[in-house]
């Protein structure tokens, strides 16, 4: 089933969806496995799995360190695909890959799409690939029926948002604020008018990410966004309290 439809079906039953982020191989694939299990059992609706890259330009200190440590521990792109195939089999929610474009480019774009499709992944988030640079990428996304998740930022103009919407499928990832992943975001009036602009520019569901950390944050997004994205927060939680802490944390978010 297509990603957008899957999310819409879930939206009939919940007033806001949850997407979480994990960095593959950090601290290990075994821990990733346990964290994903806890996330799914506690109602997470979609998971983005990051293939580590040595130069994660859009990520803040927490995810940057996770990328570096995972690579130092020896994770490879092949491992990530094997893990993705296993995970998609096991859990009945949509899974996406998040990574930087060089990982895809180096693997070979078409080979990457083919393998991702075989694994049952639903789409890709690639923060350093604007549509202007992604002509062949977007054509392959169409061919393999995988969703290219386009990104909106508070600095995007209305015209730019409309343009981006024409390339995206699945949902739009609205970056909550300027900056990198990890730091807290303020959900003030400016933010509301930004989300209203996002909503007006596309019919796709809206996910909001960057700096979402608590039940209050998610509460504040209800009625304005369709999906909240929790990234660095659970990575930090696993670091401090172990994988077992993830389930109760997720359960307490909605």
């Amino acid at each position, binding site marked *: 089933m297509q990603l957008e439809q899957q999310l819409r079906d879930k939206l009939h039953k919940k007033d806001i969806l949850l997407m979480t982020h994990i960095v593959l191989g950090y601290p290990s694939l075994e821990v990733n496995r346990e964290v994903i299990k806890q996330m799914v059992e506690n109602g997470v609706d979609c998971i983005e799995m990051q293939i580590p890259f*040595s130069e994660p330009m859009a990520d803040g200190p927490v995810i*940057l360190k996770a990328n570096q440590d995972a690579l130092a521990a020896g994770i490879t792109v092949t491992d990530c695909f094997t893990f993705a195939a296993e995970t998609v089999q096991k859990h009945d929610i949509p899974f996406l890959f998040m990574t930087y474009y*060089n990982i895809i480019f180096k693997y070979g774009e078409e080979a990457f799409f083919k393998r991702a499709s075989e694994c049952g992944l639903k789409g890709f988030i690639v923060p350093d690939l*604007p549509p202007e640079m992604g002509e062949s990428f977007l054509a392959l996304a169409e061919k393999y029926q995988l969703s290219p998740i386009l990104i909106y930022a508070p*600095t*995007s103009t209305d015209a730019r948002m409309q343009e981006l919407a024409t390339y995206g499928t699945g949902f739009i990832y609205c970056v909550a604020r*300027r900056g990198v992943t990890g730091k807290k975001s303020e959900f003030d009036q400016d933010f509301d008018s930004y989300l209203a602009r996002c909503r007006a520019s596309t019919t796709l569901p809206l996910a909001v990410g960057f700096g979402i950390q608590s039940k209050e944050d998610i509460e504040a997004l209800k009625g304005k966004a369709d999906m909240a994205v929790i990234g660095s927060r659970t990575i930090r939680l696993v670091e401090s309290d172990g994988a077992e802490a993830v389930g109760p944390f997720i359960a307490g978010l909605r």
Partner: protein
Amino acid sequence: MDQKGFFGNWGGAYIPEVLHQTFQELKEEYARCRKDPDFWQEYLTLMSTYSCRPTPLTYAENLTRHFGGAHIYIKREDLNHTGAHKANNVMGQGLLVKRMGKKRVIAETGAGQHGMATATMAAKFGLDCTIYMGEEDVLRQRPNVFWMEKMGATVIPVKDGSRTLKDAINEAFRDWVTNVDDTHYVFGTACGPAPFPEMVAWFQSIIGIESAEQIMQYHGKMVARVYACVGGGSNAMGIFKRFLDEPNVELIGVEAAGHGANSGAHAIRLSSPDATPGVAQGYKTMFLQDEDGQMKHTHSVAAGLDYVGVSPILSDLWEKKRVRFESATDTEVMQALDITMKQEGIIPALESSHAFAGAFKEVGQLAKDEAIIINQSGRGDKDIFTIAHAFDDPSWKKFIIDRGMEYSK
């Protein structure tokens, strides 16, 4: 550069969406400057009054005699204010920043020369300034860190990854996406997302424009070869650009061979088979990376050449075989530096010494009525600690120990 920022197969602008609007504004302002003859005039005036343009072309009589081949001329970018070609780019971008009305500048730096130039420009133009510098480079280029701070810049040591130039670039991008509204990122070399490669090469093209005029005046005909060291590629593009349409001028870029081309500890992107096409730091070029696309660690005694990527313009000229690429090891570079100091009383930066080393290997084979130009991109003063260490200089060591004792009292 084509519409999308490519030079042949290389370049582009692989940027996060947050920066899209800022790049639109930058591209528009840059296009206006290129069309406006007053802008270039303002630039020339600034460079001749605040810096030392035109920089001299020095005839290296003793080196010429020593090698017994073509006449050796040295383009003296070391005599620019702040001691390197980096000022050409920075002052140009400074004028652009003034036009765009931004109040803060950030920059990455490897050797510290680009950071120095940016801190200088920020002081002169009244801008806030933050410089990102790999922790390893902070240690090996300490004098420049001192001067940047004295001019009011904040220098942030970057502790991630290989703690060198590429990591400083990542961190500068992270700052930029956070503070994009009031901040301009003064990119230091002819790399990064479009329009930076072309824009930086444009400001640096002053080097080649002057050199061509000077060589005609002193030598009476075109040169046979032009040598430049290649880190990101800005001083090389700066001197090469004017000669690209001179079919008889051979252009040679000299990369850092570190401990040797087969050692795995080098920064040779174009003259060894170790690099492959990739996309990182906002652009497509030849990168030193593994099969998965993870960037490798590089090594060079020269911090400014110790980098995984290279200008997309140079990758294009390499692919089209218009520029030949060679490399020089750390050891060859020290020898070239030594001989240049003794023969000419000139101290090139370790980066620039690569161009000298590359030229010295070949110049003896050229006819005596030919001439070559070596681009001396910067002066070696900043490298005093590294060079003294490499020469294992006893009196310098004693001085450091004594000073250390004094400070630790």
